[in-house]
C-alpha cells in the first residue's frame, strides 16, 4: 500500500472537544437532567453471600417511591458483555439477583422525586436474608470440601452447564511439545507471580439516565464503551424491538474497561423508568462504583527453557484468575492471557493452562490491557531472571527472541491471529537504552547506601482490535456515515465511543486528510444507536485501527462521489481530476489535473448537486479489519529506593511507542504518560483489599485510602522522555495502529525490574508497597 504524504493526520492539532471540556460544558451521563426526572438509589447487600428470602417495600411505597426488587425484574439471565460470539458467552446474572454473591451487589432499587427522598425510601426497605457460606480466596474456592458454592448451573450460549468447585471456566492451549522442548533446554527458570485486584478508578462513576418514550420505547444515556451492545441487551432484557431502544453516545469520564459492558445499573435504571413511566436518573456513589468492578487479579506459575546461547525453546504457564462473583468475560480472558504470553517471545513449544474461579468478591472485568499487564509482569520478570541465569544482557536476550515482522501474533486469544507487518521493537530497544543511559547500569550488588537507584527495561504490546483474516470468537467491525454539506463542511457520524484518548479526533483528522478539507470543517455529529450502524466497542485498542478504519473506508467512497459530481460540473472524467486542501479559501478544491487555476470548491460541488437535485454527497458503510497488528511499547525506568522508608520513586523514564503513524502525536504521548501513571499505581500502590471476616473492602470507598496516585507520585516531570518508532502499518488507516492499552502493558514490569536492579530483590507480588519493601529488606533477600 502507498505511503501517503500526510497533511493533517500526524500533525499536532487542538482537539475538537477540548473547548467543551476546559469550559466545563461537556455533558457526561450524570449531567443529563430531564423534565420530571426521578432519582434512583440502589440498596446493596451487606453480606458476601446470601439468599434473598423476602423483601418488604411497602413502607417505601407508602412514601411515594417506585420500587424494584428481584421479584419484579424480567426473568432473563444475561451477560453484560456481548463482545464474544453467543456460543462462547457465559451468562450468570439477572437485573437484580435472588441470591447476592458479593458485598455491594444490588438487591433492590427505588426512584423518587429527589435523591434525598429516594435515600429515605430505600432506608425503609426490609430485606430478609439467609446467609450462606462464602469464600474470598480462589484456591480455597476450588477445594472439594469448601462449603461455599456460588452457582450450581450457569448458561454457556443456550446450554445450561454445571459449575463444579466454583470453577467458572478453564482453557488449555498448546503449541508444539512442551515436554520435549524442556528436555532440549540447557537452562530452565521458573517462578510464581501474583498480580493484585486493582480498581479502575475512572473519575466519572457509573451513571445512567433513562427516559420512557410515548411509543413505549426508551432513550438511554449511560456510561458505556459500546452504545450498540447496550441497546441490544436492553432490547433483549425488556423485550423491546430495537428501533424503540435508543442509546445516546455521550462523553465518558474515563473508563479503562470499567464500561466495556452494559453496567449493572443501566438495566436497573431502565426497569425503574418503565415502572414509573417517568425519566429516571441513577448515579452511583464512589463506594458503589468500587463494589461494581475491578481488574482481573491473576496468580501465575511460569517456566522458561532456553539454550545456552539464549534461544528460548519452551515455556509453560499456569494462570489462576479470581473472577469474583460473576463471569463477565473470563473465557476470552484466558484465551487472551495465552495470546499475550505466546506473542511476546518466540516459544517453539508452549503450554498454557488457565482457570477462572468464582469467589464472593467484586466481579472482575477488563481493565486497560485485559490480562496483558498481569501476563507481562510475569513474562518480563522471568525474562530478566533468565538473562541473569544465562549471563546475557537483558536487552540482548529480548532482541534474540522477540516476535516481529513475519511472525504470527495472537491478537485476541488463539482464534484471532494475524501476521505481523510492522514492528519497531529493535529501534525502541536501542533508542530507549540510549535515552535512559543503559550503559551506566551496574549490578545490584555493586550498590550500597540507604538510597539506591536501579534501571529496568520491559517490552510489551497490545493488539489493535480483534480482527483476523477469519472471524474468530470475538466480534469486530465498525460503521460510519460521512456527508458533505452545501458549504463544503463535512459531518461525520460514528457510533464509536471515545474514552478521552482522542478517537474522535483521529476520526475527524482522517476525514480531513482524505477529503482534503481543513480540520475545522469536519464536525463530529452527536449520534446514537438509531442513526449509526453497528460498532462493537471501544476496547482492545481498536478505536483508531478499526473505528477510524471504517471512517477511512467510508471517506474513500465519499471522495469518489465528490469526484464524480465535480466531473459532471467540469465536464471531465473523474479520473482526470485532482483534489487539494486550500487553506486560504478554507475548503477542499477540485480541478482538472494540471490545471489548478480551473478549480471549483467542494462547497460549490455540493451546492450545485443540491440545486440541480443530483443528491447529497454522502456514504454509509461498515468495515471489518482483517488483521490485528500489535502496537509495541518499550519502557525504560529508573527508580530510587529509600531503604529506611521502603519508598520507591520513579526518577526517570523513557517511554517508547510503536503505533505506526501517530495520527494524534500529542495524544499518543498523553496515552504513554498516562499509562506510566497507571503502571506505577499497579506496581507500587493500588490494591482492593478485603476484610476477611465481613467480605467488605478495606478502603471503605475512599480513593485516597485506596491510594490513587496524585501529581506528586509521578516522576519529576521533565524526566519522562517519550519517543515513537518510525513504522508504517500497511493495513491501518493512513498507516496507524493503536496505542491505548499498550501504553500501560509493560510499565509495571519495567518498574519491578528496576527495583531488582536497585536492591537485588525480585518482587513477585504486586504492589510493591513500602511495607512489603521493608519486610523484604528485613528478611535480607538482597544479595
Amino acid at each position, binding site marked *: 500500500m502507498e505511503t501517503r504524504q500526510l497533511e493533517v493526520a500526524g500533525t499536532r492539532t487542538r482537539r475538537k472537544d477540548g473547548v467543551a471540556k476546559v469550559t466545563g460544558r461537556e455533558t457526561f451521563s450524570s449531567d443529563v437532567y430531564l423534565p420530571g426526572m426521578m432519582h434512583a438509589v440502589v440498596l446493596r447487600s451487606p453480606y458476601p453471600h446470601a439468599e434473598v428470602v423476602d423483601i418488604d417495600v411497602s413502607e417505601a411505597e407508602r412514601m411515594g417511591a417506585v420500587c424494584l426488587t428481584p421479584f419484579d425484574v424480567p426473568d432473563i439471565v444475561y451477560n453484560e458483555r456481548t463482545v464474544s460470539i453467543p456460543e462462547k458467552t457465559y451468562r450468570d446474572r439477572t437485573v437484580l439477583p435472588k441470591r447476592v454473591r458479593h458485598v455491594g451487589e444490588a438487591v433492590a432499587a427505588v426512584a423518587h422525586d429527589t435523591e*434525598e427522598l429516594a435515600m429515605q425510601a430505600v432506608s425503609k426497605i426490609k430485606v430478609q436474608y439467609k446467609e450462606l457460606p462464602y469464600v474470598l480466596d480462589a484456591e480455597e474456592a476450588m477445594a472439594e470440601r469448601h462449603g461455599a458454592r456460588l452457582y450450581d448451573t450457569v448458561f454457556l450460549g443456550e446450554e445450561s452447564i454445571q459449575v463444579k468447585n466454583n470453577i467458572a471456566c478453564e482453557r488449555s492451549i498448546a503449541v508444539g511439545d512442551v515436554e520435549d522442548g524442556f528436555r532440549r533446554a540447557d537452562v530452565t527458570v521458573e517462578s510464581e507471580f501474583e498480580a493484585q485486584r486493582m480498581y479502575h478508578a475512572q473519575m466519572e*462513576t457509573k451513571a445512567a439516565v433513562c427516559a420512557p418514550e410515548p411509543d413505549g420505547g426508551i432513550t438511554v444515556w449511560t456510561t458505556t464503551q459500546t452504545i450498540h451492545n447496550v441497546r441490544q441487551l436492553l432490547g433483549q432484557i425488556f423485550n423491546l424491538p430495537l428501533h424503540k431502544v435508543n442509546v445516546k453516545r455521550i462523553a465518558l469520564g474515563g473508563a479503562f474497561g470499567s464500561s466495556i459492558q452494559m453496567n449493572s445499573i443501566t438495566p436497573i435504571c431502565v426497569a425503574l423508568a418503565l415502572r414509573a413511566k417517568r425519566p429516571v436518573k441513577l448515579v452511583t456513589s*464512589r463506594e458503589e462504583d468500587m463494589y461494581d468492578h475491578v481488574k482481573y487479579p491473576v496468580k501465575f506459575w511460569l517456566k522458561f527453557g532456553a539454550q545456552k546461547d539464549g534461544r528460548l525453546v519452551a515455556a509453560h504457564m499456569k494462570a489462576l484468575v479470581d473472577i469474583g462473583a460473576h463471569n463477565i468475560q473470563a473465557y476470552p480472558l484466558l484465551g487472551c492471557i495465552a495470546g499475550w504470553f505466546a506473542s511476546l517471545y518466540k516459544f517453539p513449544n508452549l503450554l498454557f493452562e488457565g482457570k477462572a474461579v468464582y469467589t464472593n468478591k467484586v466481579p472482575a472485568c477488563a481493565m486497560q490491557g485485559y490480562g496483558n499487564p498481569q501476563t507481562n509482569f510475569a513474562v518480563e520478570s522471568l525474562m530478566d531472571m533468565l538473562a541473569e541465569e544465562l549471563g546475557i544482557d537483558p536487552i540482548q536476550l529480548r532482541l534474540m527472541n522477540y516476535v516481529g515482522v513475519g511472525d504470527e501474533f495472537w491478537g485476541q486469544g488463539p482464534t484471532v491471529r494475524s501476521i505481523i507487518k510492522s514492528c519497531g521493537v529493535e529501534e525502541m530497544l536501542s533508542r530507549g537504552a540510549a535515552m535512559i543511559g543503559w550503559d551506566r547500569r551496574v549490578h545490584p550488588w555493586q550498590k550500597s547506601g540507604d538510597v539506591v537507584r536501579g534501571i529496568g527495561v520491559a517490552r510489551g504490546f497490545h493488539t489493535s482490535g480483534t480482527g483476523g483474516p477469519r472471524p474468530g470468537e470475538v466480534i469486530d467491525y465498525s460503521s460510519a456515515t460521512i456527508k458533505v454539506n452545501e458549504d463544503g463542511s463535512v459531518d461525520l457520524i460514528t457510533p464509536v465511543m471515545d474514552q478521552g484518548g482522542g478517537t474522535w479526533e483521529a476520526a475527524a483528522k482522517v476525514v480531513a486528510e482524505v477529503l482534503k478539507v481543513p480540520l475545522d470543517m469536519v464536525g463530529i455529529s452527536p449520534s446514537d444507536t438509531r442513526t449509526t450502524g453497528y460498532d462493537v466497542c471501544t476496547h482492545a485498542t481498536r478505536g483508531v485501527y478499526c473505528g477510524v478504519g471504517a471512517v477511512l473506508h467510508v471517506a474513500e467512497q465519499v471522495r469518489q462521489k465528490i469526484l464524480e459530481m465535480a466531473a459532471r460540473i467540469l465536464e471531465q472524467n473523474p479520473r482526470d481530476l485532482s483534489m487539494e486542501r486550500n487553506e486560504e479559501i478554507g475548503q477542499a478544491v477540485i480541478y482538472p489535473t494540471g490545471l489548478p487555476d480551473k478549480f471549483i470548491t467542494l462547497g460549490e460541488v455540493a451546492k450545485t448537486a443540491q440545486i440541480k437535485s443530483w443528491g447529497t454527497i454522502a456514504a454509509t458503510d461498515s468495515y471489518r479489519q482483517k488483521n490485528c497488528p500489535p502496537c509495541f511499547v518499550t519502557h525504560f525506568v529508573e527508580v530510587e529506593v529509600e531503604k529506611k522508608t521502603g519508598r520507591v520513586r520513579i526518577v526517570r523514564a523513557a517511554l517508547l511507542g510503536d503505533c505506526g503513524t501517530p495520527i494524534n502525536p500529542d495524544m499518543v504521548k498523553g496515552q504513554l504518560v498516562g499509562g506510566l501513571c*497507571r503502571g506505577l499505581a499497579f506496581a507500587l500502590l493500588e490494591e482492593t483489599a478485603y476484610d476477611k471476616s465481613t467480605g467488605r473492602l478495606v478502603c471503605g470507598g475512599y480513593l485516597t485510602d485506596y491510594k490513587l496516585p496524585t501529581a506528586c507520585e509521578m516522576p519529576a516531570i521533565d524526566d519522562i522522555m517519550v519517543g515513537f518508532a518510525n513504522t508504517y502499518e500497511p493495513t491501518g488507516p493512513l498507516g496507524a495502529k493503536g496505542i491505548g492499552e499498550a501504553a500501560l502493558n509493560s510499565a509495571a514490569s519495567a518498574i519491578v525490574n528496576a527495583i531488582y536492579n536497585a536492591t537485588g530483590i525480585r518482587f513477585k507480588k504486586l504492589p510493591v508497597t513500602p511495607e512489603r519493601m521493608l519486610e523484604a529488606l528485613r528478611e535480607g533477600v538482597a544479595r
Partner: protein
Amino acid sequence: MMEGYAIELTVNGRRVCAEVRADETLLEFLRTQLRIIDAKLGCGKGDCGTCTVLLDGRPVKSCIVLAASADGKDVKTLSGMQEEPLIKALQESFVTHGAVQCGFCTPGMILTAASYLREHENPSRDDIRRALSGNLCRCTGYKKIVDATEAVAKRNT
C-alpha cells in the same frame, strides 16, 4: 420532612435565594437546584477535587461543604469565570498542551490551578504538582496538566 434553611448567596455573579436542607452539600445545591454542571461529583468524600469551586475566592471541595454554610457568601464555578484572563489563559494552555483527555477532572483542575497561580509567583514544577495534588486525574498522568499550568505561570511572571 427535613427542615429547610433559607439562604441567600451570589453564584457566578448572580444573586440567588434558595431553600436548602440541613445536610445538602454545596455541590448538590449547585447541580440539582441551579443546574450548574461544571462542578462534578467524582467521589463525594473530599478525595478527588472534581467538585472544586471558589467560595469567597478560595478553592473548596464543594461536596464536603454544606450549602447552608455558603449563606451570604460568593460562590464561583468555572462556568462563571469564563471572562477572567487567568482562566482563559489556562483553558487555552490546557487545550494546546493536551492536558485534557476525558475532561472529567478538568474544570476542578483549572480552578485549583488558577487559585494557586493567583497567589504564587514563579512557582517551580514541584510547587505546581503539590498545589494540584488534591485533584485526581486518572487519564493523563498529570504531566501535561503541570506543563500547561507551568506555561501560564511563566507567562504571568
